[in-house]
Every structure is written in C-alpha cells, then in structure tokens.
C-alpha cells in the first residue's frame, strides 16, 4: 500500500516515509535461512546413502537428487526459523538467525520455505523418482509438523522422535538409486536416529539456561543434569552395536566394522566420562561428547563411502 486515499487528497502513510523502514535482506541472510551447517551433514549422509545403494545412477541424476535433498532440507530449516522465531529470539545460540534478528520477515521466510519445499519435491519427482520425492516430502512434513509444531515445545522426548527427520536423508539417497528401500537403508536411518539424542542432549547440557529461558522442555531442563547424563550414556551403549550393524548386514566391509567398533567404544567412553564428571567438569565433558559425536558420524559415513561407495567392498 503506497498511498492512502483520504478523499480529495492523497497522502503517504508515515510508515513508508523513510528508506530505513524498508528491510532489504542480504543474499547471505536467505542462505542462512537454509541452515547451511545442518544442510551440510544432510547432504553428506544423503550422498553416502546414494553411493552405497546397489545399482547404477547417472551422475547428473545423482547431482539432481542431492540438490533436491539439500534444498528440501534448507526449506525445512527456513520454515523452522519462521515458526520458532519467538524462542529463537530468547536463546543466545539462535538470536542472530535472520528471522529472529529481524533481517527477514517471518512471512518472507514462510514463503521462501514453502516455495523451496514444493519445488524440491516436484523436481525430485520428475527428475529422480517419486519414491525418493515422497520420502523427501515426508521428511519436510515430519520436521515441521511433527517436530517443530508438535513435539519441540511439549516433551523432553522431542529430539528422540523428531530426530527421525535428520535420519531420513541417507534413505532418500538410497531410494534415488533403487526406487525403494531395504534393510541396509533402514540401518543407515537407525544409525543417525540413535545417534541424534546423545548428540543433541550433549549440546543441551551446555545450553540448558538458553532452553529454560525459551521454555523449551529439553531433557536437562525438565529432568535435570543427572538424568540427561544417564540417558546419553544409555544411548551411546545402544549406538555402539547399531553403528557396527551395517558390517553384519553385509553393506559394509571389515574396515568399516573395525572403525565402527572402535568409535562406538570411544563414544561409550566419552559418555561414561560425562556420567562420572563433577558438576564443575560437566560442561567441558559435555562439549567433548558433542564434538566427538560429530566426528563419530562423519568418520563412520566417510569410511562407509570409501569402502563400499567407491567399490572397495561389494
């Protein structure tokens, strides 16, 4: 609305009298809406899922599949920032995000995210296959509706169930090649699904004050530090055999099996150290668990890619 017609005269509303009233977001702000750090892990795990899946795929189609998965993940990130703007403003870790900081309007983020979500699914369906596109659509739906809308603000189990959204990408990559799923694809899903809680709770231990201020019922806020440490340890014990499972299923080779066993034992070791840590030592110990959890996933998928994806093991 550029002008208000008041009868005989046309006058400008004061709200648009100054150029400073117009927010012109930088291109980088829109890129930040896509949560590029989260996207990088999604792209990597999806790429590994695509590379280790049985059967051929043309490089151009593979590129299109990864692009669609990346854009779909980015769309989910943008929509998440739109709906979490109120709590993002309250947390030090998130208050500089484009919507929370006021550089992009919530409505813009909504339109941007919806457009990218629909476009990524449609392009994936037309160029790759509709099975992969359907799972991509379900992943975006799950992240926004099930995790962001439903679970995140209601239960300390938000990240346990919601973590499934982050675990689907290797399955989507797999489906891009095969058009279906299999036990091996489910094992890759389970690996990230079981890895997510200890990874997220280690971070939550360091940022518990932030989550409490925003009213997000993360486990350390609701159940306390001790319970969170026990849960992290329990999940790390569960993760160790899940990490080795692709070797037993035949998807991965002996090098992967050995690396997964060592890394799984190390994860349990770090989680055990956190369990025994004093109150004073807990933040540093939790940061070590968080850092190691990232290394764990990257190394496991890297070895799987090198050994199975590039044909050294088949």
């Amino acid at each position, binding site marked *: 609305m550029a002008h208000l017609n008041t009868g005989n005269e046309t006058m*400008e509303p004061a709200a*648009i009298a*100054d*150029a*400073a009233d*117009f927010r*012109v*977001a*930088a*291109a980088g702000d*829109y890129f930040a809406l896509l949560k590029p750090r989260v996207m990088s892990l999604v792209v990597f795990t999806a790429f590994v899922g695509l590379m280790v899946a049985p059967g051929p795929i*043309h490089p*151009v*189609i593979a*590129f*299109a599949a990864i*692009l669609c998965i990346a854009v779909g993940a980015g769309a989910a990130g943008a929509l998440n920032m739109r709906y979490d703007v109120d709590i993002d403003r309250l947390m030090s870790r998130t208050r500089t995000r484009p919507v929370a900081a006021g550089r992009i309007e919530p409505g813009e983020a909504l339109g941007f995210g919806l457009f990218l979500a629909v476009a990524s699914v449609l392009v994936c*369906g*037309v*160029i790759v*296959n*509709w099975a992969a596109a359907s799972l991509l659509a379900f992943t975006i739906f799950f992240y926004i509706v099930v995790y962001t809308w439903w679970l995140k603000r209601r239960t300390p189990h938000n990240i346990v169930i919601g973590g499934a959204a982050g675990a689907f990408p290797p399955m989507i990559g797999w489906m891009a090649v095969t058009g279906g799923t299999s036990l091996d694809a489910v094992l890759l899903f389970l690996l990230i699904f079981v890895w997510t809680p200890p990874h997220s709770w280690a971070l939550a231990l360091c940022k518990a004050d932030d989550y409490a201020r925003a009213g997000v019922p993360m486990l350390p806020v609701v159940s306390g530090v001790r319970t969170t440490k026990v849960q992290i340890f329990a999940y790390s014990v569960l993760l160790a055999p899940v990490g080795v499972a692709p070797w037993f299923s035949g998807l991965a080779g002996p090098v992967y099996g050995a690396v997964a066993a060592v890394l799984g034992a190390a994860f349990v070791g770090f989680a055990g150290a956190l369990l025994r840590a004093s109150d004073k030592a807990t933040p540093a110990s939790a940061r070590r668990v968080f850092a190691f959890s990232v290394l764990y996933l990257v190394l496991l998928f890297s070895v799987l890619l090198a050994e199975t994806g590039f044909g050294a093991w088949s």
Partner: protein
Amino acid sequence: MSDGIKLTEEQVRRRRVRSIALALVLGGLAVLFYVVTFVKGPGVLDKPL
C-alpha cells in the same frame, strides 16, 4: 507529491547482489533441466507414480 522512497547505497547494493544470486540460481536450474533432457531422453516426463 513525493518522489518516493530513495534507497540507501547499502540497500541498493544488497538488492543488486540478491538479483545476481537469483539470476545465477535460475541460470543453473535452466542448465540442469537442459542437461537432464539429454540424460533421460524424451521420456523425462514419463514417470509412473
């Protein structure tokens, strides 16, 4: 009658960078779709549900 809003230099620069970024994305998509038609052949839209 006003001359309208005059954007600051920084706003104009941001708008230009956004326009260039959008053009690059659209150009990249056009190239991708073009290449895909060669890879998939005339059946590119023949996708059973």
